[in-house]
């Protein structure tokens, strides 16, 4: 019998809330058996090659031999970054001498929507996870969050000192920042919904580079 039938008064949100909580109280089983936590696995011997392999499985490309001053020359893109009209760079990631700097409509964007189309987006990871190629990123603004999705090509910079072995080590390090949002980005946008054939660039970036920099 619903609350409405029982009391005859109009059902509002509070009724639903208390009724659901009461149902859950009534149905709750005895506390579960104690269980073992999986100890966080250690960093593998060769984190770089594992990271590259896992990222590759996700459709991303790991760049290992680049430096903080020349990494744009190591990207495998259809054109050099200097040729792109619309670029968004997270603060601190620009390299103007290689054509990597925010430009185009993004600079005057009034709404996230104005960023579309966008050729390139460069972000910096807070840390990256070796076991799966994912990089943790907290967008500084709504525009930055949108840029990472609307760009045709995504580049994420990360550092060797910021590698963690697995998600077990990742969660204790995470924040959601002041925007209340953060994400693991682990490759280009992809789908296999047509006959399980892998297609990169389902909705968002068609390529994703993770650039591993020395500290």
């Amino acid at each position, binding site marked *: 019998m619903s609350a409405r039938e029982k009391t005859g008064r109009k059902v509002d949100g509070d009724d639903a809330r208390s009724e659901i909580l009461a149902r859950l109280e009534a149905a709750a089983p005895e506390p*579960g058996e104690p*269980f073992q936590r999986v100890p966080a696995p250690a960093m593998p011997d060769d984190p770089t090659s594992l990271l590259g392999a896992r990222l590759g499985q996700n459709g991303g490309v790991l760049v290992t031999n680049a430096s903080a001053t020349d990494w744009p020359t190591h990207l495998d893109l259809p054109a050099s970054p200097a040729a792109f009209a619309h670029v968004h760079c997270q603060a601190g990631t620009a390299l103007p001498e290689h054509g990597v700097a925010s430009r185009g409509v993004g600079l005057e964007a009034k709404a996230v929507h104005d960023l579309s189309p966008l050729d390139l987006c460069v972000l910096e990871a807070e840390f990256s996870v070796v076991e799966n190629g994912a990089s943790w990123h907290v967008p500084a603004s709504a525009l930055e969050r949108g840029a990472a999705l609307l760009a045709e090509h995504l580049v994420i910079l990360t550092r060797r000192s910021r590698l963690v072995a697995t998600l077990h080590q990742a969660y204790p390090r995470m924040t959601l920042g002041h925007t209340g949002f953060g994400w693991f980005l682990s490759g280009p946008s992809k789908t296999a919904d047509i006959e399980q054939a892998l297609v990169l660039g389902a909705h968002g970036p068609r390529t994703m580079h993770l650039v591993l920099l020395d500290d």
Partner: protein
Amino acid sequence: MGHVDRARDFVANTERTTWHDEVLWFVRAKRDAAADTLPEWEALRDEAAGIKRDVLGRLPELWRRFEQEATAAGATVHWARDAAEHNRIVHELLRTHDVKRVVKSKSMLTEECGLNPHLEAQGIEVVDTDLGERIVQLREEAPSHIIMPAIHLKRGEIGDLFHQEMGTPAGLDDPDELTAVARRDLRARFLAAEAGITGVNFAVAETGSFVVVTNEGNADLGTALPRLHIACVGLEKIVPTANDLAPFLRLLARSATGQPISTYTSHFRAPRADDGNGGPPPELHVVIVDNGRSRLLAEPAFREALACIRCGACLNTCPVYRRSGGHSYGSTVPGPIGSVLAPSQDPARHAELPHACSLCGSCSDVCPVRVPLHHQLLTWRSHLAESGHHPRRRRLAFRIAARVLSNAGLYDRATRAGRWIARRLPSRWLDRLGGPWTRSRALPSIPAESFHQALAAREEERP
């Protein structure tokens, strides 16, 4: 028409069945390879199952905490007892925000609640943005798999659909090109949408945040662009702390497709930041839905099914699912987990589903959270029989069989007579009497003596 008939229709197309079986077996093989990469695989399953079992005993406490934290972060929390209430809440939110165009990312919960038809009836356009979901939406049919919604279709059929719906050249069936067309079409819809609806993979009590995972990034685009985000979450989806997410996210994508992780694993806590263009401030609404979940929780035999993280591995491994297709189940969620969940929603309609299973147990062994699926299916059979959902004649036949099997004399006489007759009937007749067994199988030739008779004879010969 039930599972048996729909499955027979599916199997009748031998080629399609072969393809469906092999493509899903391939996904299972990728899952196996992913499991091989983690020596702690079984321990992870234990941990994940342990967390879920612990959670089931603490749901009220955890949801209260979630509500408190999420509200503090600026989200609004709603509670829905059932599908109708859920649909009403979502519609009301869209109405008060004057929303006419919605983009939705994959959510089995909104599928279960029938949200799309409800909103469409009120004049709101709902676009499913996951490519597979979009395909089945355009075909006006249900997803046939919980993470590969269009796995029942071949590229030619999708090409024909796009030709009709999006004007692609006739005969175009290349997945790259078809995806590019869908991308262009959907990008415009993302940009035009006034609200985004998503499901939730995990809610975190301690932080009031929730996680949504996709490979396409459609949940992200659908929430990064519009100013209104509505997230619909089933009561079972909560974990106590953010650290608890680790085992689940390590298992989820590996179990689902063999990937080490999904492309986008997004953590939401507050309405999205304002982009400062002077519009109304963005809003985040979370709708917590019961719709039968508390009833399942009250059933000790079935409550562990609430641990399900919807990875789809039990579908991929199920030898019946692979050969009967998702639509044969006639339930929102197909496959082993669907056959466990559906009878609790509507026992009369889904009484047949627990029998669409050979009890091989592969599902229970593949499940990352150790739902004892095949034992639950077995238990359902007796629950449904006891509650009058099995045909009377069927039950009578088993009562007679039980009589014969529990009476040594009766068993002896009945089997002697049976074999005597069977050995004398022409095989054509026997095949007819064999019913469905002999449709595809030869009957074994019937021995003149049973084991016990042969043994007695032998012992007489050489005492």
